């Protein structure tokens, strides 16, 4: 019968109309600023910089290697290397970014910077309320605005952060073991038992580090994601020697 479908459709909308008043679960939307939908764990929008510990500047994982700057498709990352060094999370002195800006009006949230970062220093944020009255300056975030603690990272992406932490801990253990082995080798050579501070051997005997790295290279690496990462801090350190 002609018009039957029309009547069915009208009945459906009428049911929705009446139902939206009586049953709350019908309503698919929430009243946004007051109520919020819990974000999905894999939500991402713009990158931020992770730091460990309490001091954002001291704990920043970024070593200004500029890989993300080069890989960024829309070229929204601007990095300037520092002249001096500060110790990184394993205690090794590293260059840090004197300037690290991301223009989020340009950023397209592709996550490539996160993929390429060898130091787990840049991660994706879920913060989306970024509107500002100043569209040029206001959307160009500097490193202080970008720096977020590791705890915050755990909060927004718990699974991913746990993986990252495990990986970093493993690396750190490896580096320490390596340093200890190097220290032991040096001690054996010098004949002086030196259970020195963790960072000390790397600083005092930079020449020994590449050698130990060569020795350590054939050691099988359980971490599949970043097979190169244990070698890289050493390479970063090598040109300084």
């Amino acid at each position, binding site marked *: *019968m*002609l*018009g039957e*479908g*029309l009547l069915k*459709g*009208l009945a*459906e*909308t*009428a049911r*929705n*109309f009446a*139902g*939206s*008043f009586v049953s709350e679960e*019908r*309503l*698919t*939307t929430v*009243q946004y600023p007051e109520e919020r939908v819990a974000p999905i764990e894999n939500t991402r929008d713009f990158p931020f910089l992770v730091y460990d510990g309490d001091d954002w500047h001291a704990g920043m994982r970024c070593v200004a290697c500029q890989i993300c700057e080069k890989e960024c498709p829309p070229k929204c990352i601007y990095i300037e290397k520092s002249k001096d060094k500060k110790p990184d999370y394993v205690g090794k002195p590293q260059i840090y970014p004197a300037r690290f800006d991301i223009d989020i009006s340009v950023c397209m949230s592709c996550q490539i910077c996160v993929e390429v970062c060898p130091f787990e220093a840049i991660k994706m944020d879920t913060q989306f309320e970024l509107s500002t009255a100043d569209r040029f300056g206001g959307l160009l975030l500097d490193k202080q605005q970008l720096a977020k603690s590791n705890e915050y990272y755990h909060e927004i992406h718990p699974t991913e952060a746990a993986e990252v932490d495990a990986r970093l801990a493993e690396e750190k253990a490896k580096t320490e073991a390596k340093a200890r082995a190097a220290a032991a080798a040096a001690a054996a050579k010098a004949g002086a038992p030196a259970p020195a501070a963790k960072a000390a051997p790397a600083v005092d005997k930079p020449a020994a580090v590449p050698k130990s790295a060569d020795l350590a290279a054939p050691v099988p690496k359980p971490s599949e994601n970043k097979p190169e990462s244990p070698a890289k801090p050493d390479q970063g350190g090598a040109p300084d020697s």
Partner: protein
Amino acid sequence: MIERLDQIFILLRDWLVHFLPANWQAVVATVLNVVAIIAVFPTLFALVTVMERKGLGRMQNRFGPNRVGPYGLFQPVADGIKALTKEDVVPFRADTIVHFVAPLVLVVAVFMGFSVLPMGRNMVLADMDAGLLFFFAMGASTELSVFMAGWSSRNKYSLLGAMRAVAQMISYEVPLLMSGLAVVMISGSLTLSKIVEAQNRYTFGLPHWYVFTPWGFAGLVLFSIAAMAETNRSPFDLPEGESELVAGYFTEYSGFKFALFFLGEYVGMFSIAGMGATLFLGGWSAPLAILNWVPSWIWFFGKLMIAMCLFIWIRGTMPRLRQDQLMNFAWKFVIPMTLVNLFVAALWRFVGPGWARWVVCWAILIAFYVLMGQTILRRRGLGPRSYRYAE
């Protein structure tokens, strides 16, 4: 007291006017009438926009606007301020004069239609002898403004929208007029107040509205379809289909002129809904004899608002038609049905009272409806669609 309330606006006007010298009174009374119309319907427009947005929201299982004012009631105020403070942009190559005149022509023509609508007992601005003809004449002249707007914008979307709008409005004006013609045949008058008076009679407390007759019911349905197409409402909103033509013929309008188009569209809906109520639903007459004490204008505006709710309900339900479906529907279904309806109305008039005419009229109408629904529409691709690749 009740009669006072019924005539409150007339009395108020006369009281205001009696302060003036005698030779001014008639002029000022007319001006007051016009001012009342110009004040009431835009206010109603504001109310209906928020009603529409909330209603559509509820049909989609969400709240509508609820931020500005209590329950979002001041939303139209915010919308209005936004529209008025926007920059008025005229395209560089546009035909400036025609571009400027088009919205004015639309709004003027649309408001003229109200001058013959009886909005209550004795509440009609100009009770013309040929009121119905005047109303449809004014409705017809809105087409030209639509064309002017679309053509003068020098924009392909505008022009396409205007062409669609004009073709659609011309096609659906024929059934609109012809379904109204059945009422004229029965009531024997083109004067709208007389048409209302003819329906303002009661047997057993039930009204003699034309919608309760076979031809009147079919007429109302056909009139509503044609009215929806005439006012470019969904599902006949091809001329301004957002997903196809941006905003159709008023794509290149902004600020106040855009607001005028918006206003014209809604006020046109009010006028055509008021006309439908007048022709088929007894205008300002009460639905039951015992409710006659309620002021007549409440009934008129109540019927108007019910019609608007129907418009909104249908907008929330139906998807948009395709252009060929639209034209086929008009010329191969609606117009033949109105012709049959005219014939049935004539039959109703000449068979005379009795149960025989009820049976015969209903039988003819239903037979034609089923026949057309089963054969013509299905063959012309208007029936349920068969998918070749999906399913």
